[in-house]
């Protein structure tokens, strides 16, 4: 079983007739890390949902691992989905749930039913949940209600759920949109470290260009439901970024972690990451 992701000529038209993706072809090797950037409404969320087997493309093909999810039987599809971890921009977690339960829910796809039911009363693996939360500096909130957390804390609970799930594919849809620059950097770093440690394939859509440049060796730019560029980060020029966001002479959307402000030879943004080179 490989951990690759593959799209061939994929298009998606929503039920209301609105087109969200047009002729998207994209291929990720197992363990590869890619950031998807682009303005609002570019189709980043739809791309994540198609790869996460949540939306079925109206045209073209999608492969997750070796499997076409829409040709698989119900059981095979469920097993495939248990290997996919999706981080949602607004975490789909009921406020009444305790943080520990929300994180442990990540493994419902692999736990037997009795364990899932018992864990509602006595958390089955509180230590595991705490460990995942601690990587996002949230280890002290294990037994709080999710409704008592701030938006940024809840977003990190959503990330911790996927870290605890240990999926082969991590698909993140604007996973740090509610976090301050330092925590955003920490959280994306935790996702990258998880991908490195277990060889998980990581695709993250990001609104902050500087985070994408810092942590990802490959960038995909999207606009109007299409892929505009797809190349190694080192080969992405500032002009391409300005063109993507149509921000001639204005600032690019960024988190503020000071990557773009540094000197770059020949207008090329270098991949810069502490402890990487």
């Amino acid at each position, binding site marked *: 079983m490989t951990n690759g992701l593959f799209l061939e000529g994929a298009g998606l038209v929503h039920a209301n007739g609105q087109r969200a993706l047009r002729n998207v072809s994209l291929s990720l090797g197992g363990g590869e890390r890619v950031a998807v950037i682009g303005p609002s409404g570019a189709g980043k969320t739809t791309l994540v949902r198609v790869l*996460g*087997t*949540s*939306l*079925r493309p109206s045209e073209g093909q999608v492969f997750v691992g070796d499997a076409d*999810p*829409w040709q*698989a*039987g*119900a059981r095979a*599809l*469920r*097993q*495939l*989905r*248990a*290997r*996919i*971890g*999706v981080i*949602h921009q607004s975490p*789909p*977690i*009921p*406020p*009444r*749930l305790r943080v520990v*339960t929300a994180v442990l*829910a*990540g493994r*419902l*796809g*692999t*736990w037997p*039913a009795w364990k*899932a*039911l018992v864990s*509602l009363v006595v958390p089955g693996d509180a230590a595991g949940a705490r460990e995942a939360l601690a990587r996002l500096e949230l280890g002290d909130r294990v037994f709080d209600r999710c409704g008592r957390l701030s938006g940024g804390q809840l977003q990190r609970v959503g990330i911790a759920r996927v870290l605890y*799930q240990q*999926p082969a594919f991590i698909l993140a849809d604007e996973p740090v949109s509610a976090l301050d620059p330092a925590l955003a950097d920490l959280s994306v770093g935790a996702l990258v470290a998880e991908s490195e440690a277990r060889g998980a394939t990581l695709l993250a859509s990001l609104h902050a260009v500087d985070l994408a440049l810092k942590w990802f060796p490959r960038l995909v730019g999207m606009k*109007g439901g*299409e892929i505009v560029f797809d190349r190694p980060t080192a080969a992405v020029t500032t002009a391409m970024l300005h063109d993507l966001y*149509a921000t001639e002479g204005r600032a690019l959307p960024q988190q503020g972690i000071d990557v773009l402000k540094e000197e770059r030879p020949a207008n090329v943004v270098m991949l810069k990451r502490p402890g990487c080179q």
Partner: protein
Amino acid sequence: MSAGAGAIAAPPAPMRDPAARTRATALVAAAVVLWPLLWLAEFKPWQLFDSGNLQVMASFLAGFLPPSMAPDFLALLWKATLETLAIATAGIALASLLAVPLAVIATRALSVSRIGPGPGRLAGSALRTATRGVLTVLRAIPEVVWALIFVRALGLGPGAGVLALAVTYGGMLGKVYTEILESGDTRSARALLEAGSPRLGALFYALVPSTAQELASYTVYRWECAVRASVVMGFVGAGGLGQLMDQSMKMLNGGEASTILLTFLALVIVADAMSAVIRRVLT
């Protein structure tokens, strides 16, 4: 950005609220339908205040006063109240045993095949429709009819009442549970299903936590209805306060009837308080 480079021209923004016409039409249609219905139902409220009618009603109500407080009647009342509470509680417990599995099958919020849509979509949708059909049949037949059927099998007494409540209220609880589960935030359940969680996992880790208050509040409200329903069922010999009420009315003892009505009032107040406590615990 250069014009025509894959850009789609935005349609001109509408000047009028596009929803206004639909809403106005719906309002007029509702009035046109309701007016003849009121005539059909012979809804003539002014007749209430006709002097002759007022007198008839007043003398009828006067027969209910004062409430009877005879000690031997109160002893009977106490026993009947306990019996009614037992019928209602056992009935609701059995009804939820019936309703919960049916609601889990019938609710769209827990459908895996709807995601995509994926494999087994037609079979899933057929199963949901069939289950909804079962729920409809269960609740379409009034509990008093079920009671008449069960009395023939089990004989006179509370047993028939419990079974009748279980069947009808199973249908009602099942339908409303189904809809409550669909009306909350279903994204959380869907996210779990998309991560390979089985349906029961998504039910208990997502849907129940987000709808616990409504589920509990509706169940307690149905318990309250079951207490009242036992009046009708008592008329067919299913025991409890209903049977006592039946006897008092037949003997034209208005005082006893009004004491029984006061008991119902007290029980409804208790149900209200229970509901409030449960909702507070579940916030």
